[in-house]
């Protein structure tokens, strides 16, 4: 079969398909989203967008325990959500292979932290595989299924953004069909009552010991002999950077970084005069190497934050001064990401401006509303934390602060983990006003379906969840809907609701402009009527700018949504 350029995500999907995977589940999250999108293209694999990562992992575990090879994919913070079943799954083990993909995001390209999920393998006693390009991502996905079955354990495939979103050359192979293995009830293995779980823990330690031996011998942990001056131990994409900077060094590269192969490392250390560990973010390998009593340089030189790249490795370990011509130009205006032209979130944030509120924010495109001109968010913590933060703040502040405690949460995030918070508001009664910014899609990750859209990942039409009815069922009596394109009306509705005590939900409903490809005729400013008051500018629309004291609409950017016309006090935009 001919060579293909695949992203790491696509290569993992290809590997899962080739390995006979039958069930896959995920919640979209950058940089992991494209794994399930690519896998869903193969008709042999049942794929779903689960409501969150815990659900996805449990779905995959359910499939594995009943005899189907299964995969769950998530971004690094998703594994926090799925941590509960992840730890139990290590005790229970698998029947057919179970692979959990964690896509970490060193550099925080699109995340709230840069945690290093190799530690999850250590904590849960689960093997961790870490590819360094797309071909390896495919091969290690297949190996992960094999290990999972041979050692009765889920396998964590840990990638990073530069693996997930780099396209490198892949040699595709055929699918090896894996029929269902047949299900037998085994309560002592799968029911984690304390009496059973105690035994499973002992069993897990035995499996982990065997895995340690495997890690010592697998060809995926291998020495590439070069000069005996410098020896470099590394995993994942760090290998590629180090190879670039040290073309002549000796390498010990890990495709399987947990359990840690101590003997292999000792033997390698004996071959070289100077030992470096090159790894991203945390000193995971380095701690293990130091525990062996070996002298090694690593995070004393390399940064412990943000992603590596060739120049960071070079300046940390080679230390030569960089020529001036390679330093970035200074004094340039930043170009932070911004909400798109026609984005319904801009209308909602405009409506919130100058209201007396403390805003618990959440995760999605609308998190950009924390930036100017809206400054519309007090916190953004994790998926679903808008409502629960607001509830906690409400209980703490009571009458001592006149600012109303509100939550801003997107539709997909609401289904992910907002619902439990809303039930809590209804049950434990707070005055939290929850704004669900419903744009009929999972926007930030590139338009995935969710329970409210009425369509599944595989394209099946289903009954959409009725957010308003759900809110009422949670004990929220006041539920109103409004279209954020009618900005002034939205502001009025929010004002009215904020004045009344008791929990409330406001659903801002308008599809994402990118989703529907909105491109209506552009609006224009009547320069005779425009007084340059900048009201429209404070929408934060990328099509609007000031020119010679008047507002100006860039016709090539404008999509004609009309929100600026709605807010203009002089009716100068049409």
């Amino acid at each position, binding site marked *: 079969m001919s*060579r293909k*350029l695949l992203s790491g995500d696509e290569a993992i999907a290809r590997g899962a398909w080739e390995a006979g995977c039958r069930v896959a589940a995920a919640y979209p999250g*950058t*940089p992991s*989203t*494209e794994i399930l999108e690519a896998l869903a293209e193969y008709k042999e694999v049942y794929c779903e967008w689960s409501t969150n990562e815990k659900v996805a992992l449990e779905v995959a575990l359910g499939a594995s325990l009943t005899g189907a090879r299964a995969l769950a994919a998530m971004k690094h913070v998703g594994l926090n959500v799925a941590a509960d079943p992840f730890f139990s799954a290590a005790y229970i083990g698998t029947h057919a292979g179970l692979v959990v993909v964690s896509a970490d995001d060193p550099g925080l*390209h*699109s995340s709230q932290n840069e945690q290093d999920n190799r530690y999850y393998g250590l904590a849960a006693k689960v093997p961790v595989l870490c590819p360094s*390009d797309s071909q390896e991502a495919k091969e290690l996905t297949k190996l992960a299924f094999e290990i999972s079955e041979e050692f009765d354990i889920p396998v964590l495939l840990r990638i990073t*953004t*530069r693996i997930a*979103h*780099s*396209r*490198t*050359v892949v040699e595709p192979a055929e699918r090896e069909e894996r029929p269902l293995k047949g299900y037998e009830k085994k309560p002592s293995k799968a029911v984690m009552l304390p009496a059973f779980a105690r035994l499973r823990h002992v069993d897990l330690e035995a499996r982990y010991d065997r895995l340690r031996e495997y890690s010592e011998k697998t060809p995926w942990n291998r020495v590439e002999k070069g000069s005996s001056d410098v020896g470099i131990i590394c995993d994942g*994409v760090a290998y*590629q*950077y180090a*190879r*670039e900077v040290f073309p002549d060094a000796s390498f010990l590269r890990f495709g399987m970084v947990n359990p840690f192969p101590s003997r292999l490392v000792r033997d390698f250390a004996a071959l070289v005069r100077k030992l470096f560990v090159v790894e991203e973010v945390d000193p995971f390998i380095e701690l293990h190497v130091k525990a062996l009593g070996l002298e090694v340089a690593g995070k004393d030189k390399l940064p412990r934050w943000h992603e590596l*790249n*060739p*120049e960071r490795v*070079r300046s940390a370990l080679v230390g030569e001064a*960089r*020529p001036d*011509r*390679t*330093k*970035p*130009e200074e*004094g*340039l*205006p*930043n*170009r*932070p*990401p*911004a*909400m*798109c032209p026609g984005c319904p979130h801009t209308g909602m944030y405009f409506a919130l401006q100058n209201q007396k509120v403390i805003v618990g924010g959440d995760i999605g*495109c609308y*998190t*950009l509303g924390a930036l*100017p*001109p809206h400054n519309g968010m007090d916190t953004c913590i994790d998926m679903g934390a808008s409502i629960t933060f607001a509830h906690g703040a409400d209980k703490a502040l009571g009458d001592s602060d006149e600012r109303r405690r509100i939550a801003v949460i997107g539709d997909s995030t609401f289904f992910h983990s907002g619902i439990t918070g809303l039930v809590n508001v209804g049950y434990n009664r707070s005055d939290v006003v929850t704004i669900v910014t419903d744009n009929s899609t999972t926007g*930030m*990750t*590139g338009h995935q379906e969710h329970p409210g859209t009425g369509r599944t990942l595989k394209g099946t039409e289903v009954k959409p969840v009725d957010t308003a009815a759900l809110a009422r069922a949670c004990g929220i009596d006041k539920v109103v809907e409004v279209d954020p394109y009618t900005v002034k009306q939205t502001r009025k509705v929010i004002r009215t609701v904020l004045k009344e005590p008791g929990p409330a939900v406001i659903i801002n409903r308008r599809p994402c402009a990118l989703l529907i490809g909105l491109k209506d005729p552009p609006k224009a400013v009547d320069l005779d009527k425009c007084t340059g008051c900048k009201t429209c*500018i404070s929408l*934060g629309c*990328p099509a*609007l*700018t*000031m020119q010679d004291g008047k507002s100006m609409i860039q016709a*090539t*950017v404008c999509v004609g949504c009309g929100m600026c016309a709605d807010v203009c006090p002089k009716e100068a935009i049409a």
Partner: protein
Amino acid sequence: MNVLICGVGGQGVILFSDLLSSAALSVGLDVKKSEVHGMAQRGGSVNTHVRFGPKVHSPLIEVGTADLVVAFEMLEAVRYVHFLSETGRLLYDTYRLDPLPVKLGMVERPDDDELESRIRARAAEALEVNAFGKAVELGNQRVQNVVMLGAVSRHLELPKRAYLQAIRNNVKKKYVDLNLMAFEAGAELAG
């Protein structure tokens, strides 16, 4: 060969680099291409790295080693000019798209003359390509990226058929003809 492509989210930087990397793949080279998705893409500064040759390790280009920097916007050209090697070449669109903080009046954007003199001071060779203008002329501003690709093709040693095939394989059917036209127009601009 190291090619860094930069612009603003939505300008088609990613499709450009997909086309360039498939063209390089089709002539039997090793190729790596790196990009970012998600929040980084929403109207922010976007860059992709494309590397090809007999064997490529790092998916990222080291600063000071790019043979070519391709910029879809002038401010972005200056932002990434330090990636150029001593003999590297910059191809940039003079198109101007102000960042939101500039539109909001929070910061000033250096004027185009200043940007240009900064480019000239840093790049061994810098060539203007009015790709956006040409795309508008062709009736669809979204082909700015493929006009640019046409221009870039004049500065790389990949055969023309490799680009054309990449366009046919990667672009939606109904836009293939428009994109082939855009490619030719771009090649002419640079010729």
